[in-house]
């Protein structure tokens, strides 16, 4: 595949790829007669024996062109006494849907070969599955817990593991429904707080060492190479650090000022989204998705409602689709404004560019507030439509006039001014160009997504590769840059803001044309019951590919498994690769260029 074929030039008409996974699956089955279809009703993909996984995965990657391991998910099939690992593999070049591989193993001795040595993008995801499900990945170079701490008891995502405040398997809880009584969980707990200890566990004092261990990595190492002896120093950054974009921690080993090793440490904001999500009813999860990537709540909503709509087999009416696209693209602008502001903050352009961009961000947030009732946590989309139609007025102005002014005047002017200040700026270029390089091959191997992937010259955008909603009817370019450094990631985000403005300009006439039409299919429901089965739905979030893997039984009102493929989390896998060899001062800039949000990294 040559580079020119991979890249869509500006001005290309929207391209819809054919859907190639069926052919690949048929081919795979021919080569490996042992793999069988997943024949549970409404499930897809194939089940592979654990000992064949590596061979199948390699054939898929090397010979069939499915080179992008997007998501690795653990599932607890407690009824069959099995654990399952689900792999979603896409083809960057061919686009279209995934090939889904599944490995089922015994619950009592769960071991699966690790794909990390071949697909480094699996690294953190496998560690997460080890952490939460206790599945061992044979051959993983560094299989430690990732979200919880090492001493933590149990594998919390297993269905039979219960948290301290456990009440019932599924909501609504009997204590709240239908009587509406409230119990305070603290009062029922022996310790008056959200903790529980193994029966008969006596603190010995050893556990106090944990703190020491945490900082034990802050150590001085002697260089073993012959010749001039220099000391390497390990520096701990975070979880409380002004530039780590939240409670993120990095343990960096330095030789002088040069980074020689880097280990991200996360979990400081692990708030058990998935465990809570599996107790919740479907609709209760919508506000939780707001709090994943809390800068882009609208697009998180979008991915989730698309997934559940597939389970429900419904589609929203036309007006709702257009409003969704409007909201999602505005969210992209909001997110990129934030990301660019913070990136510049990190390279030393303290505050000023950030505050410039916030002015426009606030305008959009005001619109969100008028539409959804909240600035940040919009909770706006519903299965089959939207919670509300567009408001009549925003800031005393009729909505359409407000939006028109926003996209035709305010945003282009603000961006032009911002670009005039920054894009050609010598200092900004000196700090950003050539720093944090990630090649196209590496970006794919590390499962990078979003601007991080596209700045490395890979023209892959879910809106184009596997269009959802009405994106196939819209004319926009996939922003691609080729140098793979911080500057190009900056440029990709700037380009995407322009493309979003372009999309919104196309959406506005549709909004006027559909004025007064319904925004919901059917009537709004609180207790939806789904058809059951499995669904994986992904959207192009501002930070990259956001995927929701949801399974449910027939007529169920709660998901069995609810997993999120979080772009910020997986993009961090490439952090070490990008940082090695650079100065420690570039580290914050590289982190800023990935654009992470801890709510999504740790979930």
């Amino acid at each position, binding site marked *: 595949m040559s580079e020119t074929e991979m890249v869509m030039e500006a001005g290309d008409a929207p391209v819809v790829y054919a859907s190639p996974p069926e052919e690949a699956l048929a081919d795979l089955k021919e080569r490996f007669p042992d793999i069988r279809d997943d024949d549970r009703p409404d499930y897809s993909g194939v089940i592979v024996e654990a000992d064949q996984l590596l061979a199948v995965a390699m054939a898929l990657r090397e010979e069939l062109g499915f080179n992008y391991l997007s998501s690795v998910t653990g599932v607890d099939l407690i009824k069959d006494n099995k654990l399952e690992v689900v792999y979603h593999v896409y083809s960057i070049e061919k686009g279209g849907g995934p090939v889904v591989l599944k490995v089922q193993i015994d619950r009592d001795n769960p071991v699966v070969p690790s794909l990390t040595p071949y697909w480094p993008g699996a690294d953190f995801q496998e560690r997460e599955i080890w952490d939460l499900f206790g599945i061992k990945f044979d051959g993983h170079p560094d299989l430690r817990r990732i979200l919880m701490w090492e001493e*933590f008891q149990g594998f919390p995502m297993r269905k039979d593991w219960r948290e301290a405040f456990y009440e019932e398997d599924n909501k609504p809880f009997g204590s709240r429904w239908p009587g509406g009584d409230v119990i305070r969980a603290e009062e029922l707990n022996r310790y008056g*707080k959200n903790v529980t200890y193994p029966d008969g566990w006596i*603190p010995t004092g050893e556990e106090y060492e944990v703190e020491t261990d945490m900082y034990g990595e802050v150590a001085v190492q002697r260089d073993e190479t012959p010749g001039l002896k220099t000391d390497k120093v390990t520096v701990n950054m975070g979880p409380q650090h002004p530039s780590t974009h939240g*409670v993120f921690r990095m343990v960096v080993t330095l030789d002088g000022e040069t980074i020689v090793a880097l280990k991200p440490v996360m979990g*400081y904001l692990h708030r058990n989204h998935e465990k809570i999500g599996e107790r919740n009813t479907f609709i209760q999860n919508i506000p939780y998705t707001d709090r994943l990537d*809390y*800068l882009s709540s609208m697009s998180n909503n979008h991915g989730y409602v698309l997934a559940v709509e597939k389970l429900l087999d419904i589609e929203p009416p036309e007006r709702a689709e257009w409003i969704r696209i409007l909201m999602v693209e505005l969210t992209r602008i909001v997110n990129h404004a934030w990301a660019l502001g913070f990136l510049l903050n990190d390279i030393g352009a303290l505050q000023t560019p950030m505050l410039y961009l916030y002015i426009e961000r606030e305008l959009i947030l005001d619109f969100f507030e008028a539409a959804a009732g909240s600035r940040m946590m919009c909770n706006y989309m519903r299965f089959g439509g939207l919670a509300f139609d567009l408001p009549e007025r925003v800031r005393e102005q009729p909505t359409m006039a407000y939006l028109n002014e926003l996209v035709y005047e305010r945003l282009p002017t603000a961006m032009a001014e911002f670009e005039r200040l920054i894009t050609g700026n010598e200092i900004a270029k000196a700090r950003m160009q050539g720093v944090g390089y990630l090649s196209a091959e590496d970006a794919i191997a590390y499962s990078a997504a979003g601007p991080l992937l596209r700045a490395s010259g890979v023209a892959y955008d879910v809106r184009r590769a596997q269009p959802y909603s009405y994106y196939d009817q819209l004319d926009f370019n996939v922003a691609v840059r080729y140098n793979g450094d911080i500057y190009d990631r900056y440029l990709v985000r700037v380009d995407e803001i322009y493309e979003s403005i372009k999309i919104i300009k196309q959406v506005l006439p549709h909004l006027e044309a559909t004025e007064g039409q319904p925004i919901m299919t059917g009537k709004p429901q609180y207790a939806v019951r789904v058809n059951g089965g499995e669904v994986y739905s992904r959207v192009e979030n501002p930070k990259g590919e956001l995927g929701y893997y949801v399974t449910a039984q027939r007529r169920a009102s709660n998901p069995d498994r609810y997993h999120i493929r979080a772009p910020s989390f997986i993009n961090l896998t490439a952090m070490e690769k990008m940082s090695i060899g650079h100065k420690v001062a570039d580290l914050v800039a590289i982190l800023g260029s990935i654009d992470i949000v801890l709510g999504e990294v740790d979930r």
Partner: protein
Amino acid sequence: MTADASIPALESDIAIPDDVKDNVFITNISKLLDPVYNWSRRNSVWPMVFGLACCAIEMICTASSRYDLARFGMEVFRATPRQSDLMIVSGTVTKKMVPTIIRLYNQMPEPRYVLSMGACANGGGPFKEGYNVVDGIDKFLPVDVYVPGCPPTPQALIHGLISLQEKIDQQSLATVPWYRKNGIGTEIVPIPVLGPDLVDIRQLDLIRAEAKKVTEAEAA
């Protein structure tokens, strides 16, 4: 402002020479000093740059130009606890994070205040039932002001900060814990540790007693 009855009347301590007796006017000294002291402190509350979760985003918005915390003398966000007066606990407190938060709190010099921002910091919020979530920072730290909301809007946060200023106005040099002779000011909070679950070391005795109950029940 009320004078504290526990303060000895100054007149009784100080011998005033007869020739100046009619020319000096001595009153309760805290009445004189408190307003000055409180006025300067309330208008220079320096928060720590300390964001935990979604609420932190609204905190940053509050500090930026549209809402402009500078009007209250609070725009000087410090990146180190050693220079801060106020810890805004802005977001979900997780078990993995709480030892760090307590350590930061202990590093802040007095006078120090804690503002709990948002449902999560107040009581666990939407994530309360989670296995890695602390159900409210007040399980560990003394909280001065609670701001409800998920997230609280910038206006709400500003309201919380004004409430803190009102609280500062009510304080008296004579009664604030950090100037008491006997005692070491506000307490240093013991740092919780991460065992099989979060261990609040103030509860060690309780944990041991519970463990004993279980072992005894098993033996019986």
